[in-house]
């Protein structure tokens, strides 16, 4: 041979042959029954962990939102409560004031009516008195006139008598 090749760098066909077979067996068997399920499990776990972290973050954000919402609701409720109290107070004040006004006006009205009635009754009574006085005067006059014609003494006596009978009440 022209060039002496070191046996170390001269590949043996036998090892090449068996190595090809061994490598293909490994590639096929491990590829199907080991690498594929292993890598699948690992990536599934990784996505699972990533999902769990993401959902935890989401829940955390939601919780924070809920707390904020609660606080906002509480504040709103407090505001509403104070508003309601204020309104109620105003309403009650208004009612009291209105009742007072009404009572006063009623009182005024009643007093006025009473006065009016008094005045009316007084007038009626006066009228009545006047009428009675008139009729009495006429009556008396009639009687006086009738008696005078018969007896003077009696007449005077009678007038006296009549006068006593007249009681002005």
């Amino acid at each position, binding site marked *: 041979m022209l060039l002496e090749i070191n046996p170390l*760098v001269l590949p043996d066909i036998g*090892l090449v042959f068996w*190595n090809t077979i061994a490598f293909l067996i490994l590639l096929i068997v491990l590829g199907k*029954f080991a690498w594929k399920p292993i*890598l699948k499990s*690992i990536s599934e*776990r990784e996505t699972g962990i990533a999902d769990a972290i993401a959902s935890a973050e989401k829940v955390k954000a939601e919780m924070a939102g809920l707390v904020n919402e609660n606080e906002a609701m509480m504040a709103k409720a407090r505001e509403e409560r104070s508003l309601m109290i204020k309104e109620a107070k105003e309403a009650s004040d208004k009612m009291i004031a209105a009742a007072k006004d009404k009572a006063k006006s009623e009182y005024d009205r009643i007093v006025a009516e009473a006065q009016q009635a008094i005045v009316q009754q007084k007038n009626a009574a006066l009228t009545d008195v006047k009428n009675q006085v008139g009729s009495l005067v006429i009556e008396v006059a009639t009687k006086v006139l009738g008696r005078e014609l018969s007896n003077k003494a009696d007449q005077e006596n009678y007038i006296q008598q009549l006068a006593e009978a007249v009681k002005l009440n």
Partner: protein
Amino acid sequence: MGMASKSIKSLLVVTFSFFILLFSNHIHASEHPQPEQANTEGHAKGDFNVTETILEHIKDDHSWHLGGHLSLPLPVILYTEKGLEVFSSAHLVDEHHAPAVYAGNFNYKLVEGKIKILGEDGSINTLASAKLWDISITKNVAALFLTVFILLLVFLKVAVAYKNTGVKNAPKGLQSFMEPIILFVRDEIAKTNIGHKYERYMPFLLTIFFLILINNFLGLVPFFPGGANVSGNIAFTMTLAVCVFVVVNLSANKNYWQHIFWMPGMHWSMKLFLAPIELIGVFTKPISLMIRLFANITAGHILVLSLICLIFIFKTVVASAIAVPFAVFIGLIELLVAFLQAYIFTMLSAMYIGMAIEEHHHETAHH
């Protein structure tokens, strides 16, 4: 930023590999004069030959040396003009562990570790030997099968564990040990180099990564069933490199080929000039993968063995005071290299795939 760190990474890889290559060359250079010395001296005294010892450990073998005079015979499978033939490698050695002639369809004999056909007169029949297909279960093939067995056992178990623990539970035991490595391959190798289409190539990259890694680690175990230098064997790295070549070129898109044969945005003369260079690049990529892994692992083994051999060269136990700590130190570095080379091979494969399927927007980029 990503591009910059990537290029720095690859620069580091290249530098490191080059350094290791140089280192191994240096060792070869320093080893080579020694054997002649050792040969002359060794033959005279009838003892130790460093180069032979080291190469014996690095090279593939038809039987698996367990220790002392104990060897595990392995099946020899030969395909010749007269058909398929299977026999035990024990027939190829005599009781003194010297090569013996086995009479099958032909007369077979081990010559420098390779099975050759002998002629009538007992000399090598090169013509017939050239037509001999040796697909024996050698030491490396047996170790490779062991790796396949380990990988199947481990990862099918892990897959079952994923099925049992379900998606909601944390991984346990072996499963939790493997998951970070799988995630490393997915996130650091596939996703960064290939992009959003990485999922298709994950089985290929994971298989390559773990096959190289386990073989690298098993190669560092000094005793049976480790010690076979599978990932430091050029046939092994060549097969993987060819697989990468096939995957890269089968998944390559129009843009990739356009950039190779007719670089857009260039003058036509430049296009003509670049085309052959780019075409060579298509082949140098897998070849570099092949050589890098082979050279790194082989160099590491040679280094450790050389250090241990110092004890035998100096023929004194005192030498072990230096040789053993150094061998342990290099062994630790080799552990790192075992992982690193598996990573680099897979990372570069992913990068080549990424380059092949990248969608270019050259209209704006090149003008």
